[in-house]
C-alpha cells in the first residue's frame, strides 16, 4: 500500500522575537500515513498538530527534512498536490455572509475548476448528508455556528479530494453535529477506495472511535504511533485508577510520586476527580498518603479499564488541555 503522507526528519522552527530563541514546532518527525487510512493526530495545544497540517497542506515549508504528500514533494511540487487535497479547520469563519450556503460552496468549488453542474449535484448530496438541505438557500450570516461548521466540512468534501485534513472539525459542536460529521468521515474513508483522512482532535473518544491509527504528538515530537487498540495494550500492564477526593492543596505533588506515570485532575465543586496511571497498584498507598498529607480525603477509589486517554497520560505525563 502506498503512503499518502511521508515525513522524514521533518523539523519546523519559527523565529522568536529579539529576546526569545527560535521556537521549534516540529522536531525531527518521521511519520507515514497510508492511503485509505483514517489517521488521527492527538496532542495538547501547541503540540505542533496545526503546523504539521499546514506543511502537508502546502501552506508552510519545512525548515528541514523531506515531506511528500500523495507522492509529491511539498516544497517543489505543491501545484500537483493542491488539486487533490482539501482542509477544514474547526471554528473556521471562511466564506461570505452575504452569500447563501449553496453559493458559498459553489464559489469554493470553482477554485478547483469543478464544472457547475457537477458542483451543484455534489453540493445537494452533501447538504443532505450533513442535514443542511433546508439551509441551502439561507444566507451564511443567518445560520448557527454548528450549521456553519457543518457547511465548512461540506466545503472540504465538495472538491472530492483524495486526501483531506480535518483540523479539530468538531471543535465546540453539539453532540448531534459532531456525530453527523464523524459518521460522514467514517463512511467517506470506508466506502471509497484510496481516500485518506488526517484528523487532529482534542477529543480522545473521537480519536479512539474514528481512527485506524493514532499518533500522539507533544512538543513537536511523535511519542507513539499505532492503532488505538495496540496503544491501549501498552498501558494494560499499568494500573489505572480514578479517585474522588475532597479539595487539597497541591495536586502536582502526585506527579512527583515514584511510579506515577501520569495523572489528570478535575475539580467539581468541593471535590476533585483524579485519574492516575501507575506502574503498579502498590503505588496507590503512597498516593493516598500524599493526598492525606496535603489535607485531602479520599472519598472513592476505582480501578478502571485503560483508554486512549491513559496512553496519553502515560506518554505525556499530563492531560490534553
Amino acid at each position, binding site marked *: 500500500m502506498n503512503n499518502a503522507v511521508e515525513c522524514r526528519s521533518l523539523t519546523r522552527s519559527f523565529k522568536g522575537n529579539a529576546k526569545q530563541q527560535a521556537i521549534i514546532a516540529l522536531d525531527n518527525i518521521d511519520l507515514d500515513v497510508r492511503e485509505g487510512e483514517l489517521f488521527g493526530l492527538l496532542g495538547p495545544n501547541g503540540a505542533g498538530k496545526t503546523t504539521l497540517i499546514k506543511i502537508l*497542506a502546502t*501552506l*508552510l515549508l519545512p525548515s528541514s527534512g523531506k515531506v511528500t504528500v500523495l507522492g509529491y514533494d511539498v516544497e517543489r511540487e505543491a501545484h500537483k498536490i*493542491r488539486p487533490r*487535497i482539501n482542509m477544514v479547520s474547526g471554528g473556521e469563519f471562511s466564506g461570505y455572509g452575504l*452569500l447563501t450556503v449553496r453559493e458559498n460552496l459553489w464559489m469554493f*468549488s470553482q*477554485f*478547483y*475548476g469543478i464544472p457547475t453542474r457537477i458542483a451543484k449535484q455534489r453540493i445537494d448530496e452533501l447538504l443532505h448528508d450533513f442535514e443542511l438541505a433546508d439551509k441551502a438557500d439561507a444566507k451564511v450570516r443567518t445560520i448557527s455556528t454548528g450549521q456553519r461548521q457543518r457547511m465548512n466540512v461540506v466545503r472540504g468534501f465538495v472538491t472530492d479530494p483524495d486526501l483531506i485534513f480535518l483540523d479539530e472539525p468538531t471543535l465546540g459542536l453539539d453532540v448531534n453535529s459532531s456525530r453527523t460529521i464523524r459518521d460522514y468521515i467514517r463512511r467517506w474513508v470506508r466506502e471509497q477506495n484510496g481516500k485518506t483522512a488526517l484528523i487532529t482532535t482534542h477529543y480522545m473518544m473521537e480519536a479512539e472511535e474514528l481512527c485506524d491509527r493514532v499518533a500522539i504528538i507533544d512538543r513537536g515530537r511523535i511519542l507513539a504511533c499505532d492503532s488505538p487498540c495496540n496503544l491501549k495494550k501498552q498501558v494494560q500492564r499499568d494500573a489505572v485508577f480514578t479517585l474522588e477526593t475532597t479539595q487539597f492543596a497541591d495536586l502536582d505533588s502526585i506527579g512527583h510520586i515514584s511510579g506515577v506515570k501520569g495523572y489528570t485532575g478535575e475539580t467539581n465543586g468541593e471535590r476533585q476527580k483524579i485519574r492516575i496511571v501507575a506502574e503498579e497498584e502498590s503505588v496507590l498507598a503512597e498516593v493516598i498518603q500524599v493526598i492525606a498529607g496535603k489535607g485531602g480525603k479520599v472519598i472513592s477509589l476505582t480501578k478502571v479499564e485503560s483508554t486512549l486517554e491513559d496512553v496519553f497520560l502515560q506518554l505525556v505525563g499530563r492531560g490534553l488541555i
Partner: protein
Amino acid sequence: MIDWRLNLRAVIGRAYPRVIGSFREPSWLFFDIFLPLLGIAAFAFYYQALGAPSVFIGFVILGGAMTAYWLNVLWSMAAQFYWEKEVGNLQLYLMAPMSRMSVLAGMALGGIFFTSVRALSTLALGLLIFGIEIEITSPISLLVVFFLTLFALYGMGMMFSSLYLLYGRGVWHLSSVFQEPIYFVSGFYFPVKALGFWVSLLASIVPITLGLDAMRQLIFAGQETMGFLPVSVEIVVLILLAVVFIYGARVALNFMENLGKREGRLTLRWQ
C-alpha cells in the same frame, strides 16, 4: 502549463460575491453615487469662483469619476488580502490549485461592476449639474485608453496585494500613504502638466496619471495643449505599464508566497 478553464472558473467564482453582494446590499448606491458629488462640487465651485474656464470643472468631474477606480484598487483589491487572511479565506485560496492572479482578477472584475456604476453616475450627474459640454474626438481611442488604464491600474493593485500576503495591518499605512498624495500628483482635479515636466513624468508611474490626461484630451476637444504628452505616446506608455505591472504582480505574488511559506507568516492572523 496554465489551466485556463480552471482559472476562468476561479475568476468567475471570486467575482460572484462582489456582484451579487452589490445587489443584496443596495445601500452602497447612496454612498457611492451622491457622496462623491460633494467632493467634486467643492472643486467645481472653487473654479467657478475663480472664473476659470468651464472645461476645468469638466476635468474635476472626470477626475472624480476615475477616483472610484483608484480607491477600488487600493482598498478593495490590494488591502482585501488582509481581510481574507483575518477571516481565514486566504489560506483556502492559497491551498487551492488556481493561480493567485485569478483570485485577484475575480476581485477586480467584481469590483469593476459597482465601481463603474459609481464612476459613470458621478460623470453623468456632474456634467448635468454643472452644465458641462463634452466633445469626444475619438471614441475608440477613449475606450482603448480607458481599458488600458484599468489594466495597468489593477495590475499595480495586484502587485500591492502581494505585500498583504506577508504583512498585515502594517502595509495598511502604505495604502493610506498612496491614497491622498496620488490625488495631488496624478492631477485628479487639475491638468497634471501644471506640476511641470519632471513631476508629471514621475507621477506617470501611476497609470491613472496618463490615463486621466489622455481621457481629458479625448473628451474635451480643443484642450490638447493642456495635455502632458500626446495621446498616442500616452497609449504606448500605458501598454508598457500594463505589461510591467501585470507581469510584476505575478512575480511579486510568487515571491511573497514563497517567503511567507518559509517565514510562516502566510496565514498568520492578527498581525
